[in-house]
């Protein structure tokens, strides 16, 4: 069913935009979709979309001569390397657009499509040694909104980085390196290093 979206003026919201050139402020949910958009300079390491397949990692190829548009099926664990350092899973599909341009690369990450979704979104970590997923937590965003997931994941990153025990793989005991959240303004020197690491 259509739910009326209101503009700041109080009237009905007809439409809105998300600019990959300017970059979106945060990753806001509006109507049916939570859309992040941004870009990287041509000299920066490109964002890498990874999907978890069993205990293996599937790298989705980056754009080269032309754009790519890749759907991440609901229920699939994925990460966008350099954008956020945790893995996430949503109960609705996600669409990843990676488009080359003259000055760099332009990106859109769009979650949504089904009514009242995303309703549950999870974060966790994948052991780089054995591929096991661990430390996962699921956030009910249906009532409180998508930002509650982003906030919970940021808190999860802080706890994860502060505790070697939390970063130890329950299967192979490999210690996961430090990681980073979605909000780059909260980076410390250590998490910035982690964000830039290849």
């Amino acid at each position: 069913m259509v739910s009326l979206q209101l503009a700041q003026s109080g009237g009905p919201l007809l439409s809105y935009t998300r600019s990959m050139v300017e970059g979106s402020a945060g990753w806001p949910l509006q109507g049916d979709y939570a859309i992040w958009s941004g870009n990287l300079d041509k000299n920066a390491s490109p964002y890498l979309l990874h999907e978890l397949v069993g205990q293996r990692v599937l790298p989705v190829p980056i754009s080269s001569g032309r754009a790519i548009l890749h759907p991440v099926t609901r229920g699939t664990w994925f990460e966008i390397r350099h954008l956020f350092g945790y893995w996430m899973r949503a109960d609705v599909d996600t669409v990843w657009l990676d488009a080359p341009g003259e000055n760099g690369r332009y990106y859109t990450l769009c979650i949504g499509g089904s009514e009242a979704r995303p309703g549950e979104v999870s974060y966790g970590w994948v052991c780089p040694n054995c591929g096991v997923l661990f430390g996962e937590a699921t956030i009910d965003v249906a009532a409180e909104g998508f930002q509650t997931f982003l906030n919970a994941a940021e808190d999860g990153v802080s706890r994860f980085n502060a505790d070697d025990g939390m970063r130890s793989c329950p299967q192979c005991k490999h210690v996961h390196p430090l990681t980073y959240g979605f909000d780059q303004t909260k980076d410390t020197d250590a998490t910035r290093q982690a964000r830039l690491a290849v």
Partner: protein
Amino acid sequence: MYTNIYVDEPIEKIHDDWDFLTDKVIKKMQGFLPVGDNVYGIRQVAHAKREEIGTAHQAIELIKERKNFEIGPKGIVQVPRIPYVAHITCAGTPHHTQFVFGYWHINDKDEVIIPVPGVNGDPDHIVIIMGRPTGEETDRAAWYCEECTSLLHMSEYVTGREGFRGFWRWELAAVRDYNADIHKRTCWNCGHVNPLAYSGFVSTDTPETREARKQW
């Protein structure tokens, strides 16, 4: 960091159509194709001029000089299509693209429209993503008077129940029904006789609807 545990198979073995912007998949999305939670449409932007509509050999032709409009409380407003800027038309907003479909489309789902410029001489594309309708969610083709914006006529298709398979058949029938009765095109408020409607598919044009397509 994960290179030691990368899958051994190429991505094509895991996901058949992993990239929707390949020529193979674009062909499937010239109309609208439901995949998972969303419906996708991908349109190549033609370099043809308005007078040359019908020569690009595409099912749905987008020419560069087209303009996009929405209707709200303040009447008809033009909305831009800017490279690398997603434009999201909210559910319930009547919207029309000049020369592409000759009616105002109103759907019950938000519609994400992303202009993706081509590089290295490749064509520009428009990517359309919208939620997959379910239940009683409906698509509508509506016509408003071009002089006074009064609602003239509207046809509905309960896409959630009927499925996207019948969408284009309904769309063409709605266009033909509107065109068959001049009373539907004649504004009840100001008396203006509005132009003919036309389908999204250029191949369905008659000489008369082709002229209408070049007009609005």
